[in-house]
């Protein structure tokens, strides 16, 4: 009864004047507001922009002593970023980045060691590339990758690269058009779609390939070269892994063979030597697919299908390559060219006994029961695996002209 009595007036005041609050309620509301302001500022572990070291690239090398790793990070130096390309006067000014390195027995302990040498805390969300030196890769990078996959700040779309020499040197490349080597390399990788000569591999791609068990993960390689006294980086070939260790390389042509077969090739320029001279063809669309075919005796063959469509980009022969016979001749030559690239990759992969194409995975997906039987000795199966190639090239256009411009061609 008492409860009802106390409840009724409260309801009544509410009805009469919904906006008014009694002093107690007002105090509670004020307290709640204060609490919200405090929590919204979220200053428990705040990290202001000027206290962060934004990491754009990480490079892992071997340390001086065995078992040690040298980790180098490239950090943005925000005050030095200029809008627009560097002018002549700015050559004397400082770089827009700083490379910091530390050596310890693992990636994480080396990164922890940074707290002893910098005032800022490393922030990895914007890390774009991850470079391992060849020596580290040959000893196995899986243990090191775990830290990058597990951490909450790092992302799975960081690009993975293997450097032929010291990985830290790559981050010191002297570049002209960009201000930070990390951005230069990341964007260069993204632009590799136009030549299909580099495998673009993210951390996720690498992890997925490794998890499949039969597929040999690959990663693009980068090396330094010197031109006009300047050290620059260049993408060159592909590293092949097995059991997390780098066991071999594919050269540029073999890399493109891999790209054709796995359907990752998009655009490419192909130069054909005809009997009259050179013709360059630009492949604009390419598609590739693989399908395992089971023979009656239970053995597998892989059927590779590649379809490419392109234009004549340049014609140095002086002959009219736009005629139907010549176009067909060119198409056949390009088909032969692509077939040779894939065969070269296949042959090399078999000598490495590394299934870079993911043939095993294709069999597992389509014939899971048979795969259980052959997966134990997949290495020997792979080296004896037969492939059928169906390559179809279509030359759709001859560019802006039909006949080439030759002297007297107008007659």
């Amino acid at each position, binding site marked *: 009864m008492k409860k009802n009595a106390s409840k009724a007036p409260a309801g009544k005041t509410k009805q009469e004047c919904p906006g008014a609050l009694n002093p107690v309620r007002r105090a509670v509301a004020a307290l709640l507001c204060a609490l919200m302001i405090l929590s919204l500022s*979220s200053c428990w*572990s705040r990290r202001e922009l000027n206290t962060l070291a934004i990491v754009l690239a990480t490079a892992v090398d071997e340390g001086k002593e065995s078992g040690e790793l040298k980790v180098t990070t490239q950090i943005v130096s925000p005050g030095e970023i200029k809008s627009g390309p560097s002018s002549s006067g700015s050559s004397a000014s400082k770089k827009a980045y700083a490379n910091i390195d530390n050596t310890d027995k693992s990636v994480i302990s080396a990164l922890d060691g940074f707290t002893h040498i910098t005032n800022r805390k490393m922030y990895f969300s914007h890390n774009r590339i991850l470079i391992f030196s060849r020596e580290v890769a040959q000893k196995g990078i899986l243990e090191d990758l775990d830290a990058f996959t597990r951490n909450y700040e790092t992302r*799975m779309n960081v690009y993975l690269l293997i450097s032929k020499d010291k990985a830290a040197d790559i981050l010191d490349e002297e570049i002209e058009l960009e201000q930070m080597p990390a951005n230069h390399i990341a964007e260069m990788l993204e632009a590799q779609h136009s030549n299909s000569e580099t495998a673009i591999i993210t951390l*996720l791609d690498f992890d997925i390939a490794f998890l499949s068990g039969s597929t040999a993960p690959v990663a693009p390689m980068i090396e330094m070269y010197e031109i006009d006294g300047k050290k620059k980086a260049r993408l060159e070939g592909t590293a092949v892994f097995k059991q997390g260790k780098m066991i071999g390389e594919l050269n540029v042509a073999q890399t493109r063979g891999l790209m054709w077969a796995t359907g990752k090739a998009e655009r490419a320029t192909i130069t054909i030597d005809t009997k009259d001279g050179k013709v360059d063809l630009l492949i604009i669309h390419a598609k590739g697919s693989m399908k395992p075919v089971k023979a009656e005796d239970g053995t597998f063959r892989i059927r590779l299908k590649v379809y490419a469509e392109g234009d004549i980009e340049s014609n140095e022969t002086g002959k009219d390559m736009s005629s139907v016979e010549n176009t067909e001749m060119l198409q056949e030559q390009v088909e032969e060219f692509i077939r040779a690239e894939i065969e070269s990759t296949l042959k090399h992969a078999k000598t490495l006994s590394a299934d870079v194409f993911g043939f095993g995975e294709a069999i*597992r997906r389509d014939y899971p029961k048979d795969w259980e039987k052959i997966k134990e000795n997949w290495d020997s199966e792979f080296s004896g695996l037969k492939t059928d190639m169906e390559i179809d090239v279509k030359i759709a256009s001859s560019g802006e002209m039909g006949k080439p411009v030759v002297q007297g061609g107008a007659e």
Partner: protein
Amino acid sequence: MKLEKGSISGRALIFAVFCFMQGTMLRSAFIVVVTKNDSWAMAFTGLLGSLLLTAIYAALLRRFQEKNLFEINELVFGPVVGKVFSVLYLFFFLSLAALNTHDIGDFVVGYMMQETPLAAIILLFVLICVYAVRKGIANIVRLSTVLCIIAMSAVLINTVLMLNEIQPGFIKPLFQLPLGKYVQGTITVAALPMGEVLAFTMIAPMLGKNKKAGKMMAYGLVLAAVFLGIVLLRDILVLGPMAGVFRLPSYESVRYVKLAGILTRMESLYAVVLIILYVFKVSILLYACVLGLAQLVNFKSYQPLTLICGALVFFYSLFVYKSVMEHADWGATVAPIFSLTFELVLPSAALVAVSIKKTIRLRET
């Protein structure tokens, strides 16, 4: 004695069930660990299982017009045994509220604010839920239409943005795991997110007609299953075998979105939607607790109990797990059995008791 105020429409209940289920996307790793690349199918087999459970709840609600689960217990089993049943349900709702609160706390601490203590986040979270329940559950349920639109568009937009990263090959080979795995996956889906629809038996009387309630819950579940299927399929096609490795596959796949270098880092949007959905879910569970407790102790109003139950949920959620690993282990092994005890065994017992009573009465007349 009617403790509930306000009324809700049937459509609002559908969307409320949907929102209630969608938050559980966060825990999709429980399923992906078991059924790997076939997990998307579990959304639908699990739906069948949960529809079975819903049929039991619907049958109970139909027999007792405008009564909620706790009132039904007392009517079926009498005041003493009925109260024992009600206490068990109360424990279940409280546990669910605590588990879900802990989940969202873990998520915020783990992925966004590593150094903030769990208690600070959970406290704020529970306070919001308490506030929401005090202001009346009908308002929250009505809000579900808006939340539903937000949640659906978040899923659809993210999925469209990810189309670029999808590799259809990851779905193969189809259904090659041992049968036991699929049974386990189905039970997990049916019991963990979907069977929790039991909480809506506390809200159903607000519809006015209990007859409709079962149908509306079923519609809500179907809608939720479709979206759970989409999310699981998307995660599997983007992450492949890595979906079974990550703790939060759906969060990780959203992180992978990278469109034209501009539309990247979408995960914070997704996190906001997730937190809103969890506020909704825990509010419903908290309401079920509070209303049940009020009826158990014969209070005239449930409002004074809200803060007390909120405090209970707060402390319970702090020690409900020691670590994320223990949580994952519990989720994959014990949780379905724990949940099914309350979702299947107890309601079935009530239904059987009702039927026996009815036949006895028929025979007497």
